[in-house]
């Protein structure tokens, strides 16, 4: 099973430094399905991970509830250091994905379309 993350929100100060990042983690697999009438093979997420039951996310972690009351993991400069960009945050989060002993981090995949 593969795994990846998505941002819910990123909070910055007026200098652009990231103060807080709310991150969702997923598991999924490579599947083929019709999209707009074309067969597309790509990574598709099958489930959102519960951050409170996944050891690599839950460890020493703060959480925030989203609009539907679901817990979302929060990360701070104490976790990722002084950064300003999503790319820097992604580098840190890829390291967090690597701590998942049950799943393999997905790399950025190119969409393939069969004519």
């Amino acid at each position, binding site marked *: 099973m593969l795994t*990846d*993350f*998505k*941002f*819910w*929100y*990123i*909070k*910055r*100060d*007026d200098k652009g430094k990231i*103060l807080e990042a*709310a991150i*969702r983690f*997923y598991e999924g697999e490579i599947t083929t399905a019709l*999209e*707009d009438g074309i067969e*597309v093979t*790509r*990574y*598709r*997420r*099958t*489930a*959102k991970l519960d951050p409170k039951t996944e050891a690599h996310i839950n460890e020493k972690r703060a959480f*925030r509830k*989203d*609009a*539907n009351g*679901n817990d979302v993991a929060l990360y701070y400069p104490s976790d990722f250091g002084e950064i300003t960009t*999503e*790319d820097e945050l*992604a580098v840190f*989060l*890829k390291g967090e*994905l690597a701590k998942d002993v049950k799943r393999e981090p*997905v790399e*950025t*995949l190119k*969409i393939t379309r069969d004519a």
Partner: protein
Amino acid sequence: MPSYTFYPDADPETTSVDGRCAASTSLTDDFATLRARNGATQVSSGATATIGITATSTTDVYSTLSRGIAVFDTSSITDSDTVDSGTFSLQATSKGTGMSQEVAITIGVTASNTALAASDFQTNTSTTRFADTDISIASINTAGSYNDWTLNAAGVANINKSGVSKFSFRMSCDVNNVAPTWVSSAAPFVNFVTADAAGGTSTAPKLVVETTAAAGSTFTPKIIMM
């Protein structure tokens, strides 16, 4: 003055959604009838959301109209903070020009916060822009950079500090409710990236919100020497 950058929830959605709705492609109509059709399809788990309009080879007759929708969970904004401004942004993978079309931003209307329905097509007909400047399809960047729409006062007022904020991205003729200048078989479109695209670094629709903390919410220590 903290800022927040929000992204829609990827499939499987639990709090917000993005994608597109479209009218049937098996029918052909004049513009007004096409615009008022009931929706026939929706895509909320694809890697892209295509918006556009397709003209047939018959004068002033069209076959397709599609509307994009992006919902953001903006409930993390501190209730006491003031929302000062907002920018709605999309990345695109490909486009096709024609009939001088632009992309405009309006309110989004969905029956559900976490799933799109074909019927959401007919509820997204607002003629009120949430950004005063449309972006022409010719100017839409498809090389990996965001296309930005600065929200006007109505757009900023649409940002919900206690729940979700919904936006729609549509063809300018659709928002204007004015038929485009028909061109035989013209099919202007834009494929926008959704939250379901692969990859951890987000290329998803995003909403950047600038806020001001409420007065007194930030403690400033003072020393009084006597």
